[in-house]
Each structure stands twice: as structure tokens, then as C-alpha cells.
């Protein structure tokens, strides 16, 4: 995506639903690009906790993220009131997170997305076993959402709901509703999670409630 697309996209979303929290998915973006768009004041933006090592359908995506760069990204966000959303693909990323926490650079709660089933050197099996193993190692005071590619995502999201986690679904992560059937739209994928969580005794958070949970100002 071109850097100058971020502003019209942000404006279009703000106009369509002024309340929703916006998270810029810019994990692969370097510091110069971030500096150019941080003034748009998304509520959150992504930070990768380890080097990108993806095998996507079109091409591999490999991006190095040194500790210095991660630190600079966090400082940029802190200075501009943007809450970092940390991407965790494996336990090694928690080592880098711990390093940030020790430097006192990250406010509690730590907002994490934990990923499963994304192809490449970043992969982890989209299985309940892997999910439980990951969750067990997360730092205290972290708020995690689960993102899984593959049809087992429904099972993983359900376990996240049961375990007190949160859910990320949408056509980016897994566009199929069931085997061979593309989701009509994002709303269909979200609605299913709403139904499941209500059945399991959890209430989908409103925007205001989400701000409280994530510690957003």
C-alpha cells in the first residue's frame, strides 16, 4: 500500500463509523514510513517482535527487525499517543517483548496478537495444543487476540474465548467461512464469533469497553 493511501483510508473509516478503533497493520513497515503516517493518530499500530519470515502466495516477505528498530518504533508510538499492538508468532518474540518490558518502554497491559498457521519460517501449527502452549508463556498483564489462518481458526478462536483471550477474524486472516465457501463479508465472520462468545458466556466489548481493556486513553 502506498504511504499516501493511509490518510484517505483513515478518513473513510472515520466517516463511516467514527467510533471504531483503528489499528494500522504496518508490522513490516520501517521507521521512515511510520514517521510519515503516525500523525494520522490511529488508536493502535502493529509492531513485529521478530524478523518477518513469510511465504505468501505471491512472494516471500522477509524483513529484518533489530532490537534497536523495535525500540525506536515503540518510542515513536509512545511519543505520538499510539498504542503498540505487538505481533507474536512464536515464543522467541516474547524474549524481545520481555526486553522491552525490562527497559520500561511498554505500558501495561501489553496488547498482543498471537498468530497461528501463517506459512513460512514464521509458521506455527494452527492447533489447540500450540495455542495453549503459547498462551501459557505470555507475560502477565497482557491482553491477547488470536489470529489464525486456516479453517481451524474457528476452533482456536473458541479456545481463546474460553481462556479469557480475544479474537481477530476477517477476510485477511482466513477468508473462507467453511471449506470451499468464501465468507460473504467481514460481518459474517464477526457475527459468528459474537454468537459463539455469547453462548460461552462472554460479551463482545463495545468500543468504550475495549478502550478500558486495552488501556487506551
Amino acid at each position: 500500500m502506498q504511504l499516501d493511501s493511509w490518510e484517505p483510508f483513515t478518513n473513510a473509516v472515520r466517516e463511516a463509523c467514527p467510533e471504531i478503533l483503528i489499528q494500522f497493520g504496518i508490522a513490516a513497515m520501517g521507521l521512515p514510513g511510520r514517521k510519515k503516517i503516525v500523525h494520522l493518530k490511529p488508536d493502535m499500530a502493529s509492531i513485529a517482535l521478530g524478523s518477518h519470515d513469510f511465504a505468501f502466495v505471491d512472494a516471500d516477505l522477509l524483513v529484518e527487525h533489530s532490537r534497536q528498530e523495535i525500540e525506536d518504533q515503540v518510542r515513536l508510538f509512545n511519543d505520538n499517543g499510539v498504542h503498540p499492538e505487538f505481533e507474536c508468532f512464536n515464543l522467541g518474540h516474547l524474549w524481545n517483548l520481555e526486553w522491552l518490558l525490562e527497559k520500561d518502554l511498554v505500558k501495561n497491559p501489553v496488547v498482543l496478537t498471537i498468530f497461528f498457521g501463517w506459512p513460512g519460517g514464521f509458521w506455527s501449527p494452527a492447533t489447540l495444543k500450540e495455542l495453549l502452549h503459547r498462551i501459557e508463556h505470555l507475560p502477565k498483564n497482557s491482553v491477547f487476540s488470536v489470529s489464525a489462518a486456516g479453517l481451524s481458526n474457528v476452533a482456536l478462536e473458541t479456545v481463546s474465548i474460553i481462556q479469557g483471550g480475544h479474537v481477530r477474524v476477517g477476510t485477511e486472516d482466513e477468508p473462507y467461512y467453511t471449506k470451499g465457501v468464501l465468507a460473504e463479508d467481514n460481518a459474517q465472520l464477526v457475527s459468528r464469533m459474537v454468537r459463539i462468545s455469547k453462548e460461552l458466556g462472554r460479551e463482545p466489548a463495545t468500543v468504550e469497553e475495549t478502550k478500558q481493556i486495552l488501556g487506551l486513553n
Partner: protein
Amino acid sequence: MSKLMIINCAADTSMHDGVEKRFHDSEVLASSVKKGWEAGSCIAHIHAPPTNYEAWENHTKAIRDCCPVMLQYGISTQTLEQRREVVKFQPEMMSVAVGAHNMAFLQGDVMMLHPRDEIADMMKLCADYNVKPEFEVFSIGELWMINDLLEKDLIKTPVLMTVFFGRPGGAWSPATMKEFLHRVSALPEDSIYITSVTGNTHLNLETMAVMEGGHVRVGTEDEPFLTPGVFGDNPDHVNRIANIAKLLGREIASVDEAKAMIGL
């Protein structure tokens, strides 16, 4: 489960603070490797500066002159061109990283990306020189990459890998028995895994590898201390795990037995 257990001795001493660096000299290195072999190791995992090809040649000659141990070049951060220069010295194995390097070492962070087309070229180099690739597995994600190589028919089984625990940085994983079992249960069939651990718990995980049918890498590179504060030289580490393996019913593989297992 294989009764025979491979011990790989990672003989370097460059990674840890307060441990004297001894292996700038080929004779010193060879002497320590030989003692490790006498204690039961059948592989020596060695290093030299990436572009000091003379040092690679000298290390190789010095070790070949004193014992029949297999050589594994620890060159997972070396480029294809650098590998071409050292593969002529005919090591039995060379290290291949199948995930991005993301290490926080004392001397500085080591960051490196490893694109799939580069890994594919390395596999061709290995095939041309009859060198077995030893894959470095720091997380389960690397298994996706190994599977990709298998599907493209770029590697032969058995797949040889080293599974790492406790190395600091973004490639870290906890050096716990739970993590060990989690990783090992995800490995492909027909793989031979050698366990390498950094940190105080290393002996626990190595013993797990003994019991689970795995293999073990020990030595001053991975974790120089036998117990906290007690430095052990390479033969001390090899001796200890060899004794534990024998007590638990495994036998220590000779060089020839290990070659047959690995498919060399």
C-alpha cells in the same frame, strides 16, 4: 527408537562471557575435539571466521590428522559464496538456517534473513559435494520450511536437524522440558534431531533427548558450565551425557554407525 545415540561436540568457546577463547589456533582446537571424540562424540561442530578460508582449511586438516570424527561446519550465517569456498575442504555436514537469524549475543545482535531461493541453492551445493545439511530449528516455524524443501524434493531423508533451546533473542525458546516435548512432538517422521541447549537447565533437556530417542549436542559453545559456575571442557560434557545415556539404555554411536544413520 534408535538404541544408538549421536553426540555432537560443539567445541567453540566464543559465545560466553568470562570463558577464554581458545580456538584461534587449529592445533588447540584439534586437541580439544580429539578429547571429545575419545569421550564419545562422533561429530565436531566447528567455526572459523567466515572469510578466513585458510583457517577453515587448517582447522579441518588438524582435526583430520588426529581423529576420524565427522566435521560439521557451523556456517549458518555464511553466504552461498562463502560456503562455496569452504565446502571444498569436504566436511561431512554444514549448518543451514531455515529461519531468520534473530539472536542477541554478547558481542552484538546477529540478524540475518534467509530467503527460500538462497536455501534452495545451498541444497544444490550440498548435493554436489555430498555434504549433509544440518538444519537449525529454533521454533516450529522452521519445520514449515523443511517441509517445503521436502515437497520440492530438494533434500533427502532422514532430515538431520539441531533443535535449539534457550538462545537469547527473537529466536529464543524456553529451555524447559515442556518446550522440549512440544517441539519434538512436531518434528517430521524420518528426522534425526540433535538437542542443543543454552542455560542452567541444559542437562535436563539433554537427558530428555536421551529418553525420547533423540541425540545430543554438548560443548563449550552451547553451555560451557557443567553446573552453574563449574566450567567443563568438551570431554567433560561429552563424558557426562555419554554416561547418562548408557545408564538409560542407549549406546553411543561410533563415527561409522552415525554415518549410516545420517545417510552419509
